[in-house]
């Protein structure tokens, strides 16, 4: 048993290492082709995030929302429900938090923060839970319905940010700023890193215990492994089409509100900037393990910050990170790279 577990771990680590190596190789290749000063661009892409406290802190800060969204996706995937609407759920969370905080500008900090967090979590949970409900009730495919809902929500949120909530004093497409007392404490100046990183780490550990040590977590995992079997075992499987989605959406809404109160202080148009999509990749790299979500999110944040540093110090554009992330996305589930153990298991099964 132990030997098999070790072999499994080994093959999945080598597979992951290979995936990341290929992603880096492709980024380097692209820089060599596209850049007039490839040495400089490559240096800043890889080393950049570690050269200044400012970059390093911002890298850690970027990992915060990714931990929330990564956890949300991990919970959903573990239960075999597919939440593809993370981007819209996070945006809706940020918007609702903004509305709540702008409505009570003189409230004490803690009350406003709690209200905003609860509101954001609920709206995310509602949006994702809705897709889960359609699936439970009529068998509507969650992954498409959640994506479509999210696409509509993004546009509607855009309307509110640029329309009724637009701040006329700012030239950017954004709402007004939230009051000072609602902003999270920054702990590593001059970077934007704020105190919510502690909360993110705590939530990862909490999610791990929830999934591994509680009744709900157990039943959710069972449904994820085999829904039919779970039905025969007497688990109310319909319930677990909705609950994991709602939890997943709640985490995304939370991610949106945390970005608002920790980083931006106002709801910019498109404030989520891909944290919903990247959450999926983060969860996959972490193999849906809540604890492993933390390093996976840090890694994704490193790619983003590296690309940003490369853009600031040389002639490449920040979307280079997207290509690197896409390559990881492509390969992270490729069983052929995750080798030995899987192929042997396959032979036994056949």
């Amino acid at each position: 048993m132990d030997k098999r577990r070790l072999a499994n771990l080994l093959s999945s680590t080598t597979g992951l290492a290979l995936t990341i190596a290929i992603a880096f190789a492709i980024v380097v290749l692209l820089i060599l082709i596209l850049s007039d000063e490839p040495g400089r661009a490559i240096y800043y892409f890889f080393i950049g995030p570690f050269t200044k406290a400012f970059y390093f802190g911002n890298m850690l800060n970027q990992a915060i929302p990714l931990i929330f969204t990564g956890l949300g996706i991990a919970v959903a995937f573990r239960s075999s429900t597919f939440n593809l609407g993370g981007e819209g759920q996070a945006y809706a969370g940020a918007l609702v938090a903004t509305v709540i905080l702008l409505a009570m500008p003189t409230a004490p900090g803690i009350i406003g923060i709690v209200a905003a967090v609860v509101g954001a979590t609920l709206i995310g949970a509602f949006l994702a839970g809705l897709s889960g409900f359609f699936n439970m009730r009529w068998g509507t495919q969650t992954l498409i319905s959640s994506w479509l809902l999210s696409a509509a929500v993004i546009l509607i949120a855009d309307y509110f940010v640029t329309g009724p909530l637009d701040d006329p004093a700012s030239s950017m497409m954004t709402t007004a700023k939230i009051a000072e007392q609602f902003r999270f404490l920054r702990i590593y100046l001059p970077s934007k890193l704020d105190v919510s990183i502690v909360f993110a780490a705590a939530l990862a550990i909490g999610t791990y215990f929830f999934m591994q040590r509680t009744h709900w977590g157990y039943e959710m995992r069972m449904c994820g492994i085999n829904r039919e079997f779970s039905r025969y075992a007497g688990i109310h499987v319909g319930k677990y089409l909705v609950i994991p989605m709602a939890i997943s959406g709640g985490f995304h809404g939370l991610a949106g509100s945390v970005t608002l109160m920790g980083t931006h202080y106002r709801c910019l148009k498109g404030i989520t900037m891909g944290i919903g999509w990247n959450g999926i990749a983060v969860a996959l790299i972490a193999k849906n393990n809540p604890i492993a979500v933390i390093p996976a999110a840090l890694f994704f944040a490193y790619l983003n910050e590296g690309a940003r540093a490369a853009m600031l110090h040389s002639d490449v554009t920040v979307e280079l990170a997207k290509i690197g992330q896409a390559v990881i996305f492509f390969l992270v589930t490729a069983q052929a790279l995750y080798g030995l153990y899987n192929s042997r298991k396959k032979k036994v099964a056949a």
Partner: protein
Amino acid sequence: MSNTTFPIPLLHSAVRIMAPILLAATGGLFTELAGMLNIALEGLMLIGAFFSVVFAAATGSLFLGIVLGIGASILAAYVFSFISLNLRANIFITGLATNLFAEGLTMVLAFEIFNNKGTIYFENLAKLPVLSIAWLQRIPVLGDVLVGHNVLVYVSWVMIVLAAIVIYKTPFGLRIRGTGSNPGAVEAMGLSPRRYQTYAILISGFTCGLAGSILSLQLGAYVPGVTAGRGWVALVAIYLGNKNPLGIVLACLVFGFADSLSNWAQGAINIPADFVRAFPYLITVVAMIGYSIARHYRTRGSER
């Protein structure tokens, strides 16, 4: 606009709007029948849109632009199929990867070539030729709806008819369908299901490339995110059309009409543009739920 002709312009633009969706759905039908959920339609379209207009501007020929745009999309489809099938990755995740990759690649290249991440206009690009077919024009009412579109709209009709013939009347089509419904049987015939799945994905690369070229060439510009969810709508159209060509045409027409109706509403009533743009997604999700409700009760009825 007089009251009697009121629906004609709406239907006319519906027919134009549905063309790229129909093309993407045509290719998606092949992958769907071969048993794969193809989320990559959106990204493949985006690649077709970018490369066709860039190559058309570079070569000065619309035709070459379309061919090379399709080529780029097929190449991307090949990478997508190789990783999904040969390296045995989860096709749903690789589909997402294709979309993300398409977005990243087009942005990086647009920045590199044009130093511009926004809309790129190509001033002296020829317009897509408009085809007027005399015998079609003579049909009352319908003639006005069907005539006067650009040539690629008609190509999209030819493609879906061709697809129907290939799927139902050729051994190749039978094997594609067999790959989805009973891969064991295909294997027993000494054929490789994986091979037919690869073909299906390459076909979807072809049609999505063409669909993308309509989007950018009719604008004479490349707009980031020009596909605006059409790949997803195409995917839903395949389900709503019950995975058969005629149903897909009808589903695409409904989406086209919803889109042109919302464009019209924007001019006629004072609705914010973002709401109007959200409308097709909402229609699509409502249609999807309606479809699953209908299927839910139909299958429950047959069990009794």
